[in-house]
């Protein structure tokens, strides 16, 4: 048996409850979309398309564009997942849908 997706929380009518869940999902989508835009910017625009331009700048004794494509972008990816985990857990608590 699957648990009912429309969970009942104390003191909320069915209608309010559904509206709250819809608001939760909207926040979730918005947050995810912002993070994915940064993912695209870092992984494709900066690391690949702008690499030759950025490589004219010096970083750690080597070309910046090269460093970003081979190391920097990976740090950004990790940060995104980290921020997602923290942020989503907070949103879960705020909307009272956490486990």
């Amino acid at each position, binding site marked *: *048996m*699957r*648990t*009912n*997706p*429309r*969970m009942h929380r104390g003191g909320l009518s069915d209608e309010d409850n559904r509206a709250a*869940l819809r608001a*939760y*999902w909207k926040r*979730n989508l918005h947050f*995810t979309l912002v*993070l*994915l835009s940064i*993912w695209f910017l870092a*992984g*494709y625009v900066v*690391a*690949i*398309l702008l*690499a*030759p331009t950025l*490589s004219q700048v010096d*970083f*750690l*004794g*080597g*070309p910046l*564009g*090269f*460093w970003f*494509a*081979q*190391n920097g*972008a*990976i*740090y950004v*990816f*990790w940060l*995104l*997942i*980290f921020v*997602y*985990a923290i942020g*989503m*857990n907070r949103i*879960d608590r705020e909307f009272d*849908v*956490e*486990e």
Partner: protein
Amino acid sequence: MGAQIYIALAVILTFGLYIGIAVWSRVSTTKGFYVAGQGVPAVFNGMATAADWMSAASFISMAGLIAFLGFDGSVYLLGWTGGYVLLALLLAPYLRKFGKFTVPAFIGDRYYSGTARVVAAFCAIAISFTYVAGQMRGAGIVFSRFLEIPIGWGVAVGMTVVAFYAVLGGMKGITWTQVVQYVVLITAFLIPAIALAIILTGIPVPQVAFPGVASRLDGLMTELGFSAYTAAFTEISRLNVFLIALALMCGTAGLPHVIIRFYTTKTVKAARWTGVFALLFIGLLYTTAPAVAVFAKYNFLQTVVGQPYEQRPDWFRSWEATGLIEFADKDGDGMMNYGPGAFTDPESANELRIDPDIMVLASPEIGGLGDIILALVVAGGLAAALSTASGLLLVIASSFSHDIYKAFIRRHASEQEELLVARSAMLLAVLFAGLLGVYPPAFVAEVVAFAFGLAAASFFPAIVLGIFDPRTTKEGAISGMVFGLLFTGFYIITVAPGIGIGWRPWLFGISPQGIGAVGMILGFAVSWSVSRVTPKPPDTVQDLVEGIRYPRGSAAPIEH
């Protein structure tokens, strides 16, 4: 070779450890066998995911490949890490909330179609087998090169150990051995890298040291007539770097053996944290690999190129015997000349043929690090091969026992019966994978490279739409998967060197490795359009899609 004693010791010690874990982590339920009882803490699950993910190729071949591609090697670094962002944000929490044991089970339920489930199960099995053959082969090659055991025996030893912990412990045994395997492989990768960083720059952090060495390397390369190491798009065009990275990222997120690791956590929250730890542990190797590439190449150019062959370093002599490095004195001056052009071309000035694998395998010797480190690298290479193999074997076993046997052949099979089938399937899969390792079909190596594109064009759109778009219908999903697969497959077959019929890349010069990205976008478009003109999915599916949006209740009892 005194090193052999250390290597044998390292192998016996680590293998003994894996077998010990197998005995300790026996399971007696299907939940234990498929998803380790859903009780793996996020940190350890992150380590297990990292070991699962980083294959013999990541450990042994990737740094060497980057050393030869220079900047353009970034496609592998970006592609194989960026995929975790997609996995962690778009798939993992929702599939964990869904709460079933396999990826085909999700496809089947979400698209209300038993046929879709079986097709997905067969795809998962096929993808996993092409992969696992390479792992077994990798383990066999490591055995044969370092311990002078025939490849067949090496594969047999590796198989026996994997069979032991995977059959007894299922996902639980696999998870805990992977945790140990991660520690072994990352130690083995980092120690030589740190030592080389200190030797070359005095800085003990490879990630900080390598850009400086890279610009020194630029100088050496241009002197020899190559383009600069850090110059972009010299080996792969800008468009192809973009598309290959995209295909690898989406393929990563669509590979079943990676996805199921997120099923093993207790809660949705822990699934999110698994992503954080997984990329942390993976990133440790992936940010070090470009440094190893730069150090190894720099050392190589410094100590070998332009030197007299008679005074070649000791490591050169020992690796010459394995055929991984070769010298032909074309101009008869006794010097080892190196430059652009093919080694096989008698007219070119290039007198050296170097197998990319040598960059990691020989790095302890190039750095003068001694036999104990060498033994560690061997144990690390084996850990990388075995940990990935076991994760893939679990997908094969569970796809068969859960999605084909239990779902179709004998619906009323008891849990004990299903578990027995799962164990037998695992044993057979290990044997079959071993055979593929000893007698590799000629095309395996080439096919593995395209598995990502195929996964990106088929599984990825179906799963993402299944989660985010309640309107996607059975017809939409199936037509998208079939179209993505056929389009990508057709392009690969017509264009890919080695397996193809040898056409020129007929679509904007796109490389067959990158075509999966185009296939994926087309797959999304087809699924979306077909879904809009076919009957709405039933209400139960709407409930399912809505149910996975909210984390609460993931730990609730679920009937499978």
